[in-house]
């Protein structure tokens, strides 16, 4: 099977759907001839034209609201928010409008839209362009939250997100854009709410999201040398969350480390840890649940400081060893 990048997979998922469904269109800042800040939409305006690849002014509130209003009236918009940090400026439209309209209206109307947005640190863009704010959105009933970690997952999950009749926040990790994996050429869908076991193992479970899946895989390779067999569960979607796959894995291994890039305090890892603690897996735990997340600090500019602010492979190795060695 051919290999393409995560970025190409996202673009392909959009383009294939737009060829099939006239109601699907994309709007966002600099997504026209510029091709988007990260190049995801490059070539799309040439294929689909400026009516369906809508280059917008720098007006996050209005373009988010325009996406909601057009979704409510029959379109299926994909909104590219240039950096996920800018969700702060679009927040009213996503949290108070998109997420709630259907419920407030007594079940009438629906808001089928996708907000695609690059998240995470590692590019040296500092505090206002490097955050991982997914826990905010996961907190809001009415929204769905997706965090693909591979090109294969990105394509299938984006197809499912576009097909979904609800507002879906689709986080793309910037450092994953250039990563490659096997991706079928034809359209396929990965159901929202289905976790993926990225590596099978028997000694300890790591529940990791987005780029941390890759760091966990690296850590697992090192740990294997020391005879520790790691299982890695990638939830892929935070809302809905595949609790069953996580709980089953922990029941099997009896030990678990939860890792994400977002700040640990109030991060989604707390939710995952709680799900485990409240489940039947609690009785199977041979060690306390361990959480790894970003430090409570804005992402700094200096590369060494930036790296130190979020979990790295050695941190994961250390956490796993502590968990495994717990008596």
């Amino acid at each position: 099977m051919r290999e393409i990048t995560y970025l190409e997979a996202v673009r392909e998922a959009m383009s294939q759907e737009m060829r099939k469904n006239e109601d699907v269109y994309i709007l966002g800042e600099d997504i026209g001839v510029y091709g988007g800040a990260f190049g995801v939409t490059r070539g799309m305006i040439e294929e689909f034209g400026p009516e369906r690849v809508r280059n917008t002014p720098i007006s996050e509130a209005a373009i988010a609201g325009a996406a909601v209003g057009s979704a409510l009236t029959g379109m299926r918009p994909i909104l590219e928010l240039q950096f996920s940090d800018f969700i702060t400026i679009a927040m009213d439209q996503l949290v108070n409008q998109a997420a709630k309209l259907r419920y407030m209206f007594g079940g009438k109307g629906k808001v089928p839209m996708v907000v695609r947005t690059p998240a995470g640190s590692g590019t040296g863009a500092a505090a206002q362009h490097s955050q991982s704010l997914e826990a905010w959105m996961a907190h809001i009933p009415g929204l769905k939250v997706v965090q693909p970690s591979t090109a294969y997952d990105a394509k299938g999950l984006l197809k499912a997100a576009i097909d979904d009749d609800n507002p879906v926040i689709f986080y793309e990790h910037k450092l994953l854009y250039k990563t490659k994996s096997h991706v079928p050429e034809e359209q396929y869908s990965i159901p929202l709410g289905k976790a993926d076991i990225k590596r099978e193992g028997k000694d300890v479970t790591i529940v990791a999201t987005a780029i941390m899946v890759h760091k966990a895989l690296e850590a697992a390779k090192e740990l294997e040398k020391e005879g520790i067999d790691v299982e890695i569960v990638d939830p892929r979607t935070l809302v809905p969350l595949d609790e069953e796959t996580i709980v089953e894995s922990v029941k099997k291994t009896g030990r678990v480390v939860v890792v994400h890039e977002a700040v640990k305090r109030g991060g989604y890892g707390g939710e995952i840890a709680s799900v485990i603690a409240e489940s039947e897996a609690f009785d199977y735990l041979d060690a306390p649940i361990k959480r790894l997340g970003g430090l409570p600090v804005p992402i700094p500019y200096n590369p060494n400081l930036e790296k130190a602010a979020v979990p790295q492979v050695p941190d994961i190795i250390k956490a796993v060893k502590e968990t495994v060695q717990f008596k």
Partner: protein
Amino acid sequence: MSNHALPAFITDERLVELYKQMWLIRYFDEKVDQFFAKGMIHGTTHLCVGQEATAAGSIAVLQEKDKITSTHRGHGHCIAKGATVDRMMAELFGKVTGYCKGKGGSMHIADVEKGNLGANGIVGGGIPLAVGAALTSKMKNEGYVVLCFFGDGAANEGSFHESLNLASIWDLPVVFICENNQYGMSGSVKEMFNIENIADRAQAYGIPGKVIDGNDMLEVMNTVYEAVEHARSGKGPVLIEAKTYRWKGHSKSDAKKYRTREEEQEWRKKDPIKRFKEYLIDKGVLTEEKAEQLREEAFQEIEDAVKFAENSPEPSVDTLLEDVYA
């Protein structure tokens, strides 16, 4: 009262219906006011007594396929867009027969199928939604116009600026109608704006701006009709500022310390219903007797709506989690 030529579908018969509709709007909100005073409805509400002409007049000139977005002070818009007062009252009572099955309340009444995209509890929150709905009309070539209501308070939200610019650069079929009722909660327009007319901001977006007497039914109908057809023809949005006044306080807890009795009395003299009645009688399409009869009919319809609401069942707690997701 101005006397322009009205669009052809505004027949004399329709004008008389609109007169009754204005009373229906007024009595609906008067009744709700009484219920709140007696503690018979919980939550909060925002009443549009005194603003009936901006709701009834501007929606009267729309076609059935046209859509509206409304505000927290939206009961009048809902009635004018064809909502039935019994289901509206039931919603305020939190009953399952209400427009939102009792889950939305006063600030969230919507009737998406009828083109009412909802009242909105966030000041300025509905403006971008209107732009999006207008974008659908343009992209799907559906030919409808969106009439976007908001108040003077919302004109100082960022969403106002972003939305008007976006609608303008994309030539979208949307008419922005600012019901300037002089106060955003307690904030007077004199205190919160350094310009005379909010509609003057239109030139900043390269679109037409019009200031009208929002208590003059005919001026409202004529101006909105012209604006809606301008937007429908592909020439882009228009901003209308309708100067009006809310007779009641902002919401149920308002002691109205920020304005004077004299000011309130001055505006009561400009009662839009009274002025419209005088026009219709003068035009020979309405008599005092008929006017009185219509007023009484409207009163009775609200009484019946109350009975319907009172006799409707409460939503089952089992329905709590329904409709969060489609």
